[in-house]
């Protein structure tokens, strides 16, 4: 199953994220059926598979939104299986959602400040009395929120409600919010969905810049062009089962993958997506 050579350059002891034989049943449906993979510092790993393969369910198990029916999830060696999402986030695991989950009525800046909740140093008394500590932490939060919005290249209005932004911009805000948490591991669920060609190119660049920060990335993505360009390793799911795990090259040639995606006869179309052929 797993057991592919680790990404180069990892000298640290254990993996950052270690998913061991994860299972999740919904009544009769085996949404995740024995998933194992690990991610190390600085990794970029993709989880791919047809719709309904169990990718989002796996993310939800890792981040605590679903309780796995079997298996374990370790973050830096700590067993976090079944912990509540906020406790997992406190371990430096951040995520975005497949269907945008912004705080639509709140300002774009406030959305990003959400990521800083755990780090802001102020309590209720500071807030009631507007102590210097309160003012300082608010000022820092605003600066930092602007920094992350710059980082993701947001162009729209930051002082207005997030729902007023166009779709592509909202996606950026969601990533900025996830980054503001200061994660060691960032899980992105279909970040390119609904983006146009130009936006996808910017996303590719953004993913590389996030990786350069030292944050490990795990992404679910359907855009094969993007996946093949950015991933160091790819895990392939089908009907909850892990059918491949390897480098983009290995996965591209894997017959089981081709079959899952295309049926037996049409192997040559594997990477015919909206890839920038540069």
């Amino acid at each position, binding site marked *: 199953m797993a057991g592919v050579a680790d990404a180069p350059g990892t000298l640290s002891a254990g993996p950052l994220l270690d998913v061991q034989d994860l299972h999740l049943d919904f009544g009769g449906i085996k949404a995740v059926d024995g998933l194992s993979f690990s991610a190390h510092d600085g990794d970029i790993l993709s989880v791919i598979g047809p719709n309904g393969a169990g990718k989002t369910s796996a993310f939800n198990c890792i*981040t*605590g*939104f679903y309780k796995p029916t079997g298996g374990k999830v370790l973050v830096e060696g700590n067993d976090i299986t079944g912990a*509540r*999402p*906020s*406790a997992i*986030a*406190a371990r430096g695991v*951040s*995520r975005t*959602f497949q269907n945008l*989950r*912004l*705080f*639509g*009525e*709140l*300002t774009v*800046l*406030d959305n990003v*400040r*959400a*990521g800083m*909740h*755990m780090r*802001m140093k*102020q309590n*209720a008394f*500071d*807030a*009631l009395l*507007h102590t210097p500590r*309160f003012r300082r*932490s608010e000022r820092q939060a605003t600066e930092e929120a*602007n920094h992350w*919005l*710059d980082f993701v*290249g*947001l*162009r729209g*209005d*930051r*002082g*207005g*409600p*997030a729902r*007023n932004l166009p779709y592509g911009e909202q996606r950026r805000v969601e990533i900025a*919010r996830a980054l503001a*948490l200061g994660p060691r591991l960032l899980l992105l669920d279909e970040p390119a969905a609904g983006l146009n060609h*130009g936006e996808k*190119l*910017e996303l590719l*660049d953004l993913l590389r810049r996030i990786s350069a920060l030292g944050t490990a990335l795990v992404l679910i993505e359907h855009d094969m062009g993007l996946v093949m360009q950015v991933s160091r390793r790819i895990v392939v799911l089908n009907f909850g089962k892990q059918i491949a795990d390897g480098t983009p090259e290995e996965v591209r040639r894997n017959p089981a993958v081709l079959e899952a995606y295309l049926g037996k006869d049409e192997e040559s179309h594997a990477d015919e997506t909206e890839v*920038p052929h*540069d």
Partner: protein
Amino acid sequence: MTWNRKKAPTSADTPRARVLNRLLGERRLGWIGLAVALLAPFVDASNYSLSVLTSAALFVMLAVGLNIVVGYCGLLDLGYAAFFAIGAYVSGVLATTYGWSLLATVPVVLAAAVLAGVIIGGPTLRLRSDYLAIVTLGFGEIIRITANNLDITGGPSGIYGIPGLELFGLDLSSPVAFYYAVVVIVALAVVGAARLGRSRMGRAWRFIREDEDAAEAMGIHTYKLKLAAYIAGAVWGGLAGILFGAQLSAISPQSFTFLWSALILLAVVLGGMGSTPGVVLGAVFVSVLPELLRDAADYRFFVFGVLLIVVMIFRPQGLWPSQASERTPARRPEVQKEDAWQA
């Protein structure tokens, strides 16, 4: 899942409304509101008007307290009068039976309000938010029925002879002095609630209201924060209860019926959930309007009801809806060069 999640686009989005709100600014509005409250007795200082004004001020305090729970955090509380009752009874019993000054009862009322908040909120806030509405509705009735049946609370006839307010040797029991004392205390309560709303905790409450899962994903322990909102609401309600007892000098179970909870909630919804100016306006509206309609005699609650319906039709978001807007310094977001990629 939360009952108030979906919002229709409103006039609050129009550029004009945004400019207006920014021009006025919450702080300036607060000063205007305070000035109006302080000057009102100069227009009419009859005992009747002072009592209406005092009630309105207390109603404002209740509404901003409930607004923490309902407006900020999105939790539907249908029994808010219970905390009001707890405050009034705890301080009333201590003041009449044990001869405490009202000021001395404050810490006990705070403790009782927090305890009640934990007992009711603790188990229910773990469940889906819909359950809270039902449990709080029951809680409101339980508190009232308990007060009706205990000896120490005076049973159905309640408590008499609650002393007036005396702060640091200053007798504030005359209607005018009491009114001014209430205005100052309520002003502090309004500012306090608004400040909490604009803090780390207040933002977390709004995140929960908007999307509980996304809030959790950001490391916000949603259960603890919901409990904090519920307790904060309890504290505001309990403190208002002390003043209520001092104003009337007598309280009974009939003072804390479901109608009270409903009217406070109405003030919040009518004014604009989550919006401090809106909720203050809503509270004044709901408490003063029936008095202004006295001439309509038997029809006054009918007219009141019709007016409410009219407001909700024309301003479904409330009289003064909350809206997300903050000043951002003019900045040039670094423009990404797409050409670089196509080259």
